[in-house]
């Protein structure tokens, strides 16, 4: 038995001149929830539709449970799917909607009724059997969608922005409900979203996409702490990008030249002296202190250009030799506009990013 429940191997899908999926390769483990995360139009839905069979890829193969399904039509792929617009059958009651996949499979009537009841219980919608979709709230409709997708225990659950038509509070609530269900049933799930918070909260692993390419695949922590590209860093959380030049590559550190100052960063692949790179760090990892005494290693001198009070933290823009560095501090110490400060970039929080790297995962 293959370790992978779903494999997209080197998928390319074009619409006219638009390359919606550009050599996408994704492997999803059994029982794992993977999110496809990326801005609008990056090709998430296209990739998902290659899994469902609604898209036939121009190049590449699709495997589900070890079987090549590239040429298998949608209705024989045994999938469950939850749609952004719910896509319930408006002429059927809640019960009939959830029963539909079982009815299609010509399952026994009493068996059906039992499974439908179980599924409705799973999504906490008992007592709504006789309602029509339009008589339900958005959240309830999406629960029906979830029950319909899960009722026949498909191998794979696919969700295309299932929560984006719900309000913020309900979204958060349903997010955990979906995660909980997915774990209890141990079902493999692919979740499409453009909401990075949702992706980080839900996923076992995240695939970040941009312009039809997969930029990085990893756990939420890996994606957040070790973004592979500038795009990934920028898309998830706040980022500082400081132009730098590689001075020396040593076994346990890389020395960078930032506006004439020396900064040490952890070792990084494929860097060599003389290379122009970006020094990446999260604003809340940077520390400030008043410019007094000698500078310590990895400290550079700067001037506070702008400060904003955000309630639980301060947000500073620091001018470091003409480069703006954003810093967020929780400390009690306040700095005023125009004040000279030392900006400390902790060695272990620094990352080196090659700006030229655009489509790393091929």
């Amino acid at each position, binding site marked *: 038995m293959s370790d992978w429940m779903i494999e997209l191997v080197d998928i390319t899908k074009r619409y006219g001149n638009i390359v919606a999926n550009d050599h996408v390769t994704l492997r999803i483990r059994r029982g794992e929830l993977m999110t496809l995360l990326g801005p609008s139009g990056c090709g998430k839905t296209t990739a998902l539709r290659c899994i*469902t069979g*609604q898209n036939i890829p121009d190049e590449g193969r699709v495997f589900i449970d070890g079987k090549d399904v590239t040429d298998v*039509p*949608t*209705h*024989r*792929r*045994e*999938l*469950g*799917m939850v*749609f952004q*617009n*719910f*896509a*319930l*059958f*408006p*002429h059927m009651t809640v019960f009939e909607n959830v029963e*539909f*996949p079982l*009815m*299609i*499979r010509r399952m026994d009537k009493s068996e059906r009724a039992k499974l439908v009841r179980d599924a409705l219980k799973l999504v906490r919608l008992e007592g709504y059997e006789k309602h*029509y*979709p*339009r*008589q339900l*709230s*958005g959240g309830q*409709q999406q629960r029906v969608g979830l029950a*319909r997708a899960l009722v*026949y225990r498909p191998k794979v659950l*696919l969700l295309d922005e299932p929560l984006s*038509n719900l309000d913020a509070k309900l979204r958060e609530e349903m997010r955990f409900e979906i995660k909980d269900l997915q774990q209890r049933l141990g079902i493999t799930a692919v979740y499409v979203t453009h909401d990075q918070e949702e992706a980080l909260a839900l996923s076992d692993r995240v695939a970040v996409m941009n312009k039809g390419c997969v930029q990085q695949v990893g756990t939420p922590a890996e994606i957040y702490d070790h973004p592979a590209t500038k795009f990934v860093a920028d898309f998830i959380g706040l980022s500082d990008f400081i132009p730098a030049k590689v001075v020396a590559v040593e076994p346990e550190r890389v020395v960078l030249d930032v506006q004439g100052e020396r900064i040490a960063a952890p070792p990084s692949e494929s860097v060599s002296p003389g290379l122009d790179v970006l020094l990446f760090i999260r604003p809340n990892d940077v520390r400030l202190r008043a410019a007094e005494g000698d500078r310590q290693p990895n400290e550079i001198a700067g001037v506070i250009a702008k400060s904003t009070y955000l309630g639980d933290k301060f947000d500073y823009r620091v001018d470091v030799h003409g480069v703006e560095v954003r810093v967020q501090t929780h400390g009690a110490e306040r700095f005023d506009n125009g004040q000279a400060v030392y900006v400390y970039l902790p060695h272990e929080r620094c990352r080196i990013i090659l700006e030229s790297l655009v489509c790393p995962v091929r």
Partner: protein
Amino acid sequence: MRTLRQYLQALLNAKKLLAYTFLLCFFLWVTTPFLMILLKSFGRNWFGKLWFPPEFTLDWYKWAITVTNVPEVLRNTLVIAGIAVTISTLIAIPTGWALGRRQIPGKEVIMSTILLPRMIPPIAYALGVAQIFYRLHLIDTHIGVAIAHVAICAPYAILVLSSTFEGLDERVLEAASVCGANNLRTFFHVTLPLVMPGILSSIIFTFTTSYNEFTLTLMTYGPKTITLPVRTYLAVGEGYWEVTSALSMILIIPSLFVLFMIQRQVQPEKLVGGFKGV
């Protein structure tokens, strides 16, 4: 604050009252002539400027049925309407599907071409049709009169069905296929029930159009294909207003019946589905 609310409430009530008044006027305007005919068809010795007949009778209906041969006329009307509805629907389903769901170059041009028979004056159009039918020996045949009716029934059907099919949510059909339904089962379990109300209302439209059609029938009918509207018109010429009124009532009944039947079939709350928001 309170007074403002009361003021608004009063305004709202006034608006409601106005709406009801309008509705009542409209109702009277539509129903009064109808009532006059109804009374006329049952009244006896009703002359001069009296608003109400002094006596009632069923004689005019007996006359209408025997003298004007209503059973055969009704049969003609229904057969012609049936053929016209069938042909129109068969034309309109594929055409409406193409116009509603596919990107077709020159869609507007096609649409207005289809509507052309409805734009030009019916009598002019009917004259042209009669000239052609005369040459094709289609005058005074059920199929001939029905084909003439199709020219004005089909545009209705196409219009109604293309918007029905346009409103069909592709994503719901995709959901069915992800649920495991092949094309055939998707069609029978999802597509058909969703478009059925549209098809039914197209049938109502075309049926009543053909059933009530006068001008086109007048130019294409013959002794074997007299329809109710034409028969009623001829009765006016014969000068018996009471009989004509009775005929009109007979003409109206099946229309009302069809409308009522189909109204019960179509349950609006099932039709508007999907999601709130976007």
